[in-house]
């Protein structure tokens, strides 16, 4: 839970609005501490690489030899300058370290390095960014994707029309995939902090949701739908004039035309294979 909150427009995790930024009012000690002397951090890193890395991993998140994840253990999180690490190193770790005797200055440097890594964590418990990992998002069968596109999408879209060159746009495969599933709006929010760029810019060819309101006397009003609930509908007419109408059940008659309705209707129908195939196909539309 955290988790999440005013449902209307605020995602449970729109932390930015709450000042959760680094060192901000709503941060944790790992983000609040002043950066240590870079020379001290560098010395600590050298000690870590020599004495700790083989068990605790290059990223401090634990290693194959069973070392714990240092980025979440209480002794590290509560430590200031190595005072909580020293007893561990001289206690349970004494035999493991063997002849390597870490003096107080060594431990202080080691602590400075560990805390410098902790400070890079983006929030919500996520680890600091590691080295880039190649992620093969494009796994679909482009031929099957073309068949699916022809069967399901071609009544509204064309790769020689509105989607011409979509595979040549400066989009990663995940962005392209999100874009077409969402119908050009690229999805909204929910990326979570530290997630990187995920929502592509909207398609410029996107059409607006329109509405026709027919009064009991037959008079019709048409325009762009601004908002609708059970009690009101508001539209903007072609000349820019906004107009609102009270709703009482089926009166007046309200006919909404949402160009994304077909996309929404497909959401429960797609298989993930369909999705990956269509993405592979569209990625090749240069």
């Amino acid at each position, binding site marked *: *839970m955290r988790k999440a909150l005013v449902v209307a427009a605020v995602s449970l995790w729109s932390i930015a609005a709450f000042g959760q930024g680094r060192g901000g009012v709503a*941060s*944790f000690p790992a983000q609040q501490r002043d950066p240590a002397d870079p020379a001290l951090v560098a010395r600590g890193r050298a000690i870590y690489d020599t004495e700790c890395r083989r068990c605790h991993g290059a990223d401090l998140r634990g290693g194959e030899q069973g070392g714990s994840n240092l980025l979440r253990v209480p002794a590290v999180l509560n430590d200031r300058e190595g005072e909580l690490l020293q007893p561990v190193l001289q206690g349970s770790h004494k035999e493991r370290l063997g002849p390597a005797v870490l003096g107080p200055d060594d431990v202080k440097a080691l602590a400075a390095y560990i805390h410098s890594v902790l400070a890079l964590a983006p929030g919500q418990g996520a680890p600091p960014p590691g080295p880039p990992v190649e992620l*093969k998002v494009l796994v679909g069968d482009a031929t099957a994707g073309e068949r699916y596109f022809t069967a399901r999408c071609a009544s509204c879209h064309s790769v020689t029309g509105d989607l011409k060159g979509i595979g040549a746009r400066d989009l990663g495969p995940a962005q392209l995939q999100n874009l077409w599933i969402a119908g050009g709006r690229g999805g909204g929010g*929910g990326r979570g902090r530290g997630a990187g760029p995920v929502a592509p810019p909207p398609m410029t060819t996107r059409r607006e949701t329109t509405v026709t309101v027919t009064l009991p006397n037959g008079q019709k009003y048409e325009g762009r739908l601004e908002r609708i609930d059970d009690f009101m509908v508001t539209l903007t007419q072609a000349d820019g004039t906004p107009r609102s109408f009270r709703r009482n059940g089926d009166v007046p008659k309200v006919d909404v035309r949402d160009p994304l309705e077909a996309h929404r209707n497909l*959401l429960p129908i797609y298989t993930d294979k369909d999705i990956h195939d269509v993405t592979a196909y569209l990625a090749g539309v240069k």
Partner: protein
Amino acid sequence: MSAKNFVAASLLLAPVLLAAQNPAPGTGTGTGTRTVVVDPTTLTKPLADEWATFAGDYTSRRYSTLKQINTSNVKNLTLAWMTSVLTGPRGGVPPTIIGGVGTREFTGGTIKGAVLQVGGILYVTAPDNVWALDALDGREIWHYFWRTRGATHIGNRGAAIWNNYLFFETPDNYLVSLDARTGKERWYVEIADFEEQYFSTPAPVVVGNHVIVGTGNDLDGPGFLQSFDPETGKLQWKFYTVPMKAGDPGLETWPSLETAKYGGGHTWMPGSYDPETKFYIFGTGNPSPAYTGVGRPGDNLYTCALVALNVDTGKMAWHYQMSPHDTHDWDTVQNPMLIDAPVNGKPRKLVSVAARNGYFFTVDRVTGEHIVTTKYGTHTNWAGGLNSKKAPWPAPEKEAIIPGALVSPVEGGTTNWQPSAYSPDTGLAYTQEANSFNMLYLTDPDPRGSMGLGGKLRVEVGSTGKFLTAIEPATGKVAWRRKYPNSGGGGIGFLATAGGLLFGGDGSGNLIAHDAKDGKPLWHTRVGNISNAPQTYAIDGKQYLLVGTGDQLWAFNLY
């Protein structure tokens, strides 16, 4: 309590003095004298004039027996008053009472929790702030502000009250007790480790002489529930929701003690209390790391579970896990509604939950025996099936995967902290039902798993609609659904009343009174973005409807 915890020694005598001033229990309704008294035993009675605990009463049904406002006259409901609260260490008359052990001043929080109404006084909270307002017109009586050390300030779910004592939690993990009459601080005690990145949003719940306190954490820390003495703040018991040492029950559902100890399961929301069994029944949070379950194969008990504890000992009586091995951040801390209803013709004592994962559960609240599992999220698509205990387990292909999986519901769930309600008059439970979809990408394929909420990208790609959904608890069957025209909106939780009404928001800024029978709107008013669930109370024979919108409170009644 850790060594860092402390109680302000000078205040230890205060409870004795205050106790001597207490009038007879259960008489705290006179607004003229502003007597503030809650006899904890009165909380077991049906919800009526006062709203003295998070869900109004211990059943978490959010059903009020008040019926002055009813289906016949609700069309005449009108504004009684509206007021704004100001966060922060402001001046004014009376001046803000300042507390806290930090130096940081957080402002900008909003009302996202329950408002207590006791003795004609409303107790309102936002992170680091508590206000006492006159329930007749919303005027401020006192304001308390806590200077913080930091931590996630995402919301506060409200205060608890016991005799003259008010209790609330701060984001930087203190349980603070105030004199409910004056706002003066009695004591504060540390409830979780700030350095380990715990942060506290829940409303405490008072049961007898226990102040039951939950907390939260995103950094893989273990979840726990604690009970404190309302007089002194002394820790009475602490229950971990995950195994913490060799031999602990549930350890067999984790690959190692190390993974269990860093397995989450936080106590984000208040639970219910059954006085017959003395069970405190609450939901636990998701396992951690949230999205990368590869490093924690197994059911991961007691995360995502309904847990019943003996309120005096903190010992577990039973559990029912609603999302074994969750991999979508779907905690199951939604309000456990205590319901008495026949099952197969026999009267049963039940507890029902409309869970964040899109499934509705009913179990026997005495034994934990499973009764019902149904899927109420129309397009919920993540489960591979039900396990032998009738709980849905995650299909691996619908977890975060590198090429992306289309999953419904989204991280926020089919519902979330927004409470469901149950009306014994209609026999229906009411919940929001959000059928949104997101693409989930695995970005940290490390076989150890990631940490916290890391290791994934999540992009929302559309919704097939949001609904007010009515469910029969004994069968789990959906009786009816009512779609909100604005699919981008969402509810904010519900309140049912003996007046035949169901109050809720529509995500478009409207506060709506529905006919509880069929959901038909009978009254509405646009108040803006509603930020907490509707409540009701009565003073001197007049019923009020109360709702918050950010930093504003609105009260409605009949003239």
